[in-house]
């Protein structure tokens, strides 16, 4: 187990290096720089001043040298400086990371709970009205873009029904009402964005879970379990579920990155103050150190999650442990 962990971590290093180089070069290739935006906003047009700024930010150096310097500083956990927030990029990321993590975890929790439950029910009640209904819902949420779903959820639950706020992460007054009230307030704000982001993945999980469960339920050991006199649901949950969950775990790891990406859209729709909002703002203001920092940081997170998934596989499937 520890050996696998060490091997996977070492494999992650060249991967992250590749991510850094790729993203760095892509951003270099993009037109404009944050100096253009900066000088336009502060109405500086003096060429000497602009040249001075280019030197200050090291942009007068050749690209390969900038890249090497960047890699070296990332290795020391220095992702550069954001002129816009006037603080280190890492601090910018850390300030908005908790909001994104809360949103992602809530979404994934919704996706897992709804998706796995729906998939299991659909498989057990295969070819009944329940199966058809759940499959229809899965296709619906699979097809609906998350920004559209977000807007529709807002229209229905926030505007028409007024059950939840339209956006933001907490009420202005929440911070001085104690911990419990704050948590409840955040959950209240969290409901819609987490649904908007999570329902798509719930649909994916439901479809995969249904297929996996149907296959597992046709296997011989399910018949053995029934021959023991176990009830239908005990057979499904104790013998079927654990085998059928394996593809879901894989999917979870693979999709962690796309959930991170999806949160950018959803955070924008719901003005959720997370990494996605920072990212969008940084792209439009050409704040490339932050863009690059978020990309590198999130790829590190995705790689770590996938290592965790590999380790979870070891726990779930004894046949892999033996190898």
């Amino acid at each position, binding site marked *: 187990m520890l050996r696998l962990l060490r091997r996977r971590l070492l494999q992650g290093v060249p991967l992250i290096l590749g991510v850094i180089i790729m993203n760095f070069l892509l951003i270099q290739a993009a037109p404009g720089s944050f100096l253009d935006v900066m000088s336009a906003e502060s109405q500086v047009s003096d060429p000497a001043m602009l040249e001075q700024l280019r030197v200050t930010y090291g942009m007068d150096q050749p690209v390969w040298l900038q890249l090497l310097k960047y890699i070296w500083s990332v290795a020391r956990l220095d992702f550069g400086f954001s002129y816009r927030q006037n603080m280190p990029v890492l601090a910018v990321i850390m300030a908005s990371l908790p909001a994104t993590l809360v949103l992602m975890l809530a979404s994934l929790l919704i996706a897992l709970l709804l998706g796995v439950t729906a998939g299991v029910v659909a498989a057990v009640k295969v070819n009944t009205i329940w199966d058809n209904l759940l499959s229809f819902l899965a296709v619906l949420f699979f097809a609906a873009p998350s920004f559209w779903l977000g807007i529709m959820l807002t229209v229905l639950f926030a505007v028409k029904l007024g059950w939840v706020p339209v956006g933001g992460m907490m009420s202005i007054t929440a911070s001085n009402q104690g911990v419990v009230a704050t948590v409840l307030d955040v959950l209240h704000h969290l409901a819609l964005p987490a649904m908007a982001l999570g329902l798509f993945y719930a649909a994916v999980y439901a479809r995969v879970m249904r297929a996996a469960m149907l296959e597992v339920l046709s296997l011989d050991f399910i018949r*053995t*379990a029934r*021959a*023991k*006199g176990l*009830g239908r649901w005990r057979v499904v949950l104790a013998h079927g579920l654990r*085998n059928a969950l394996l593809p879901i775990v894989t999917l979870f790891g693979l999709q962690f990155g796309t959930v991170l990406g999806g949160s950018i859209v959803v955070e924008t729709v719901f003005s959720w103050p997370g990494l996605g909002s920072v990212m969008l703002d940084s792209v439009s203001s050409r704040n490339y150190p932050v863009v690059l920092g978020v990309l590198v940081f999130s790829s590190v997170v995705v790689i770590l999650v996938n290592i965790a998934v590999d380790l979870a596989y070891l726990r779930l*499937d004894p046949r892999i442990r*033996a190898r």
Partner: protein
Amino acid sequence: MAGLDVRGLSVSLFTRGGVLPALSEVSLSVQPGRTLALVGESGCGKSMTALAIMRLLPEPPARIIAGQVMLGDTDLAALPERRMLGVRGKAVSMIFQDPMSSLNPVVTVGDQIMEVLRRHEGLTGRAARMRAAELLALVGISDAEARLDEYPHRLSGGMCQRVMIAIAIACRPAVLVADEPTTALDVTVQAQILELLKRLQAETGMALLLITHDLGVVAEMADEVAVMYAGRVVEQGPVDAIFAAPLHPYTRGLLGATPSGGTAGRHTRLADIPGSVPSLAELPAGCAFAPRCPLAFAACAAQPPLATLAPNHLAACFAAQGMPADAAAGA
């Protein structure tokens, strides 16, 4: 201890293409401490009979449409599912053809045995674990205590079948249904498993319904034999009588198509039965074997009844029943 008495069991498959008769009026009986071998070709309904007894038929499409499965005074075929749960694995147990795939790959052997002890015997924790180890020792697995924590993929096929047997006999069932228990195993392991089943039967006095297509296994194990063809029992009787004086032409064909071990070096052509088993959708009216039968005559267009032709020896064949050809023509 009660034996198993199957009376007139009929199972149909309700498919889009129509209703297919998978089992027709199957009657079998196996007494405590005795072994009944159910033989026949693939697809003749042996496994279907076993699953019907266990009420584990794939429903839909299969459904019991008539008959009784009597265990003592209880008709299992009529029992509500909730009460049937208390019968499976306790009064009637079953082991299957492929032991490797019949055990859950992600659950330890011990947990799979203890599960049935918890379910039916109310044993938990330490007591369940001790009993599980006892059972493993009983089925001839050495170092039983340590084996409890193994996963099935670490065991050989023969070991897995021993574990399956341990699960099946955990609650001392009155009837054990063994569906081709040795087909997937090496010949040497086959012999060990059959030996084990015999020993356990002698110790517990359970009735054994042994499903096989291997007549060598039949000769080794069975007290009585029932031969099935196309969903029907066509001949039934004591094992000696069946081997010495088979009445049904299909049984004779089966015996003739078995290579005999004693003729090493002497190459004789193996007899075969002409034609092939009809599909359930195209069963001929009357005797299903008639199109392949050397003795078929006009009467065979009607279904011959299973009639007693010798002591305890029944056959469903007009020719064997000695019906004259002209008298049968009107039937």
